[in-house]
């Protein structure tokens, strides 16, 4: 007898409004260079709670890389707090908010939501951005919904 295939879980990235706004603001501020950062959260919770803007050591409109010393500090800090990177985000400043081949090749956090923000439309100015989220596992990209939750208080 064949076993039934496991149901495909539809994943959703849930982000609070404050964090969403902060990521968008970061991307707009750094335009035309790519902005990057993470939102950490308790390990295994899938709950993105602590936004950390990172410096793009590449300082480039077509590439981003966390500075290696900052990267070590970030992971040590998350380790100490039993956190993991729930969201890893960066911006595309001239192309759509879809992972590039480089993004896919270098995606090394199978549990993370990879968020892409495109600032190609309005650059540093006010105006909507594309804000999309993906899972990237073993070179496979799966887009997921983004649910923005209004902040309490």
């Amino acid at each position, binding site marked *: 007898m064949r076993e039934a295939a496991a149901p495909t879980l539809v994943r959703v990235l849930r982000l609070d409004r404050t964090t969403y706004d902060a990521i968008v603001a970061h991307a707009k501020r750094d335009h035309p260079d790519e902005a990057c950062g993470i939102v950490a959260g308790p390990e295994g919770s899938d709950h993105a709670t602590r936004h950390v803007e990172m410096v793009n050591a590449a300082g480039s409109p077509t590439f981003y*890389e966390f500075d290696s010393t900052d990267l070590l500090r970030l992971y040590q800090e998350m380790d100490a707090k039993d956190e993991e990177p729930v969201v890893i985000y960066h911006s595309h400043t001239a192309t759509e908010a879809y992972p590039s081949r*480089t993004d896919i090749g270098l995606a090394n956090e199978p549990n993370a939501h990879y968020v892409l923000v495109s600032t190609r439309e309005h650059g540093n100015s006010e105006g909507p951005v594309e804000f999309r989220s993906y899972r990237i596992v073993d070179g496979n990209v799966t887009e997921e919904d983004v649910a923005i939750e209004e902040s309490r208080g």
Partner: protein
Amino acid sequence: MAIEVRIPTILRTYTGGEKAVDASGATLGALVDDLEANHPGIKERLVEESGELRRFVNVYVDDEDVRFTGGLGTELSDGAQVVILPAVAGG
């Protein structure tokens, strides 16, 4: 001489899910070979065929990025702490 090596999530398939393993070696290169002996396949993820450390893998010895301390030739003292972290990067 046991040296603790912190393993990133993506490489824990080689360590049976362990976040940290012990390994030994007088240099980082020797340590990687020792890791490979106990966790086959892991070396290829860290080192190019040419023998250089992979561009998008960061290795730290006592909080220093080994790119600034001699790469795989970096000497390891007793009780050294080694951390492996894949770069967070893209285009």
